[in-house]
């Protein structure tokens, strides 16, 4: 993949939360590349920092959290085939420039569609808001666009739904409305934060298929955050496995599922129940995710790792390339 395809290049991103009890290093040195037209899945257990990292790409980290260091280079395509490079980390969170990007070029869908939609406004008004904000169009044109988007996400009777309030819709319909809103300005990157976790399996399958189809039609990049490895296997081109604020393994979906290198990735895959002829015994990861205030030294996974060596508690592993487009942070693979 050449640099033309690069959309977002994140380097050494660190986001700390300065709470009364101490500093929580929610994201602690994340490198990530998002390419045009591809889907990257960010997978990890709760508290690993995956949602916080994604919020950083829109520069919407809430206090007491702060982006401490790092750069997030956004390669923005200008009309004449040229590229602008903007470092999102350096932008003022309330400034004009990030507000032009947010919701237009990078947009986001959230987990709980009931809490992220306004219940005081109709679906149509909420979609039209971002259309009117980012485009020089009349209200009638924006409304037409809202109906078109609702139709595109498979909403039945979009002309009627456009004037409905969110409480009248089912969970799956609300999530479709959220997607319509996020896509109304043709974003180049869609961030989907657990978009199907609150939904039933049949609805989840529809939403997953919808996001994949729309991605192919619109050629946008998707950053898909989930804890469900099944969903990852269905949608991802690339997978980033996160543990305690670090990306411990990155690779394409086939490699991560069939040739995982990091002991955490391997253990995660062993601990999920599979639908197969034989009932296999589950092999859970020992222990639990440590408290954010008492992170282990060295490799943060070492207390739970079955292959831990003595040096793992002292040395912090670096990013090691173990194959084409495949990196891992583990001492087992350093100095090879």
């Amino acid at each position, binding site marked *: 993949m050449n640099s033309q395809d690069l959309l977002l290049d994140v380097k050494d991103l660190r986001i700390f939360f300065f709470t009364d009890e101490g500093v929580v290093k929610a994201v602690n040195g994340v490198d990530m590349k998002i390419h045009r037209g591809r889907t990257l899945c960010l997978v990890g*257990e*709760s508290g690993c920092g995956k949602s916080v990292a994604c919020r950083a790409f829109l520069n919407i980290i809430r206090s007491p959290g702060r982006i401490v260091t790092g750069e997030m280079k956004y390669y923005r395509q200008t009309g004449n085939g040229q590229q602008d490079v903007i470092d999102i980390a350096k932008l003022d969170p309330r400034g004009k420039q990030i507000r032009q990007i947010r919701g237009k070029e990078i947009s986001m869908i959230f987990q709980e569609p009931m809490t992220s939609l306004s219940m005081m406004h109709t679906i149509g008004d909420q979609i039209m808001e971002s259309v009117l904000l980012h485009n020089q169009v009349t209200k009638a044109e924006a409304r037409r666009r809202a109906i078109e988007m609702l139709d595109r996400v498979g909403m039945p009777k979009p002309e009627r739904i456009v004037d409905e309030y969110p409480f009248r819709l*089912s969970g*799956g*319909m609300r999530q479709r409305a959220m997607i319509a809103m996020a896509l109304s300005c043709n974003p180049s990157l869609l961030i989907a934060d657990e978009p199907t976790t609150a939904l*039933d*399996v*049949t609805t*989840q*399958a*529809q939403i*997953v*298929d919808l996001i994949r189809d729309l991605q192919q039609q619109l050629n946008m990049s998707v950053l898909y955050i989930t*804890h*469900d*490895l*099944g*969903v*990852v*296997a*269905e949608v*991802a081109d690339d997978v980033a496995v996160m543990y305690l604020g670090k990306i411990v393994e990155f690779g394409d*979906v*086939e490699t991560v*599922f*069939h040739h995982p290198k990091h002991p955490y990735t391997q*253990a*995660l*895959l062993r*601990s*999920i*129940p*599979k*639908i*197969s*002829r034989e*009932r*296999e*015994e*589950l*092999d*859970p*990861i020992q222990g*639990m*995710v440590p408290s954010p205030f008492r992170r282990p030294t060295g490799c943060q996974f070492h207390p739970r790792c079955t292959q831990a060596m003595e040096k793992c508690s002292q040395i912090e592993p670096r990013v090691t390339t173990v194959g084409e487009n495949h990196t891992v942070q583990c001492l087992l693979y350093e100095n090879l």
Partner: protein
Amino acid sequence: MTNPIPHTGLQPALQMGNPENLLEVTGLKKHFPIIKGVFAAAQGYVKAVDDVSFSIRKGETLGLVGESGCGKTTAGRCIVRAYPVTAGQMLYQLRDESVVDLAAVPEKELSPFRRDIRMIFQDPYSSLNPRMTIFEAVSEVLRVNNLCSPSEMRDRVEALLKRVGLRPEYMQRYPHAFSGGERQRIVVARALITNPRLVVCDEAVSALDVSIRAQILNLLEELQADFDLTYLFISHDLSVIRHICDRVVVMYVGKVVEVADALDLYTRPRHPYTEALLSAVPIADPRGRETRKHIHLQGEIADPSNPPSGCYFHPRCKFAQQVCREQTPELRTVGKNRQAACHFAESIQLQGVIS
């Protein structure tokens, strides 16, 4: 056994259909009234569970699956008699092999059965009282029922906490000091402290992270072997159900649509709804994902207060014929150990997810 159940003496001698069954549910109904207006008259009923029949064999794990709103939780709660049931029979075989109808036992005489049939809830954060220590929470049922002396109580709680993988030294702590996985272990201990025979696990692992989920699933399996337990495992997660269940009951809008051995169900479903449900399960293997097709059901799940005519699934079913709009299909035997409620269960070819 520690708590023998006295005969209620109110019912005529009942008999199980099959002596291997621990519980036989027949024609169970639970209708919730929709109350509107000043005179609080029922304007209609939400038929959360509508004529449900299934049985649970001794020592097995029976899965109850379906989407939200299908009535699986309500059915589970009826079995523990959290609600009075609207109609139906729930025959329960006691330790001495006599049979009692749980649906007919008066509220005041339920307490021995509440020790025998216990429940594990989904959310370990809201199902533990934050103002009770772990010891108080686990021993509460022993204390309020005066089931044992304080010293014996301490020993029992200690032994059980150890068995579920917690350190008994921590039993004077409050729930906030524990993580989600540990809390779920506490909830498991609380359910097992009375030496129950049947445990209703309502989405017991759904709120847990993958690594913790595997620990709790393994723990539940070990405890089943150790204490000779029977589980009714209610879940929407079909991979968990495949892992833990021997047999599966599939529900749709308050009705049972299919009952089968787990492997048979996943290999060859007999009801179109089961097929659609199975096809939607994300498989954790990227290989062959292009060939896997999700079946997209048309429309929305039916409204249990105003269900469609005939088969409740017909508006979304690609096989629907005129008869499906007119006649409600009965749950009937369609093969060895399996039942389906579909007019065309034998003639349609459905795709499973295990080849």
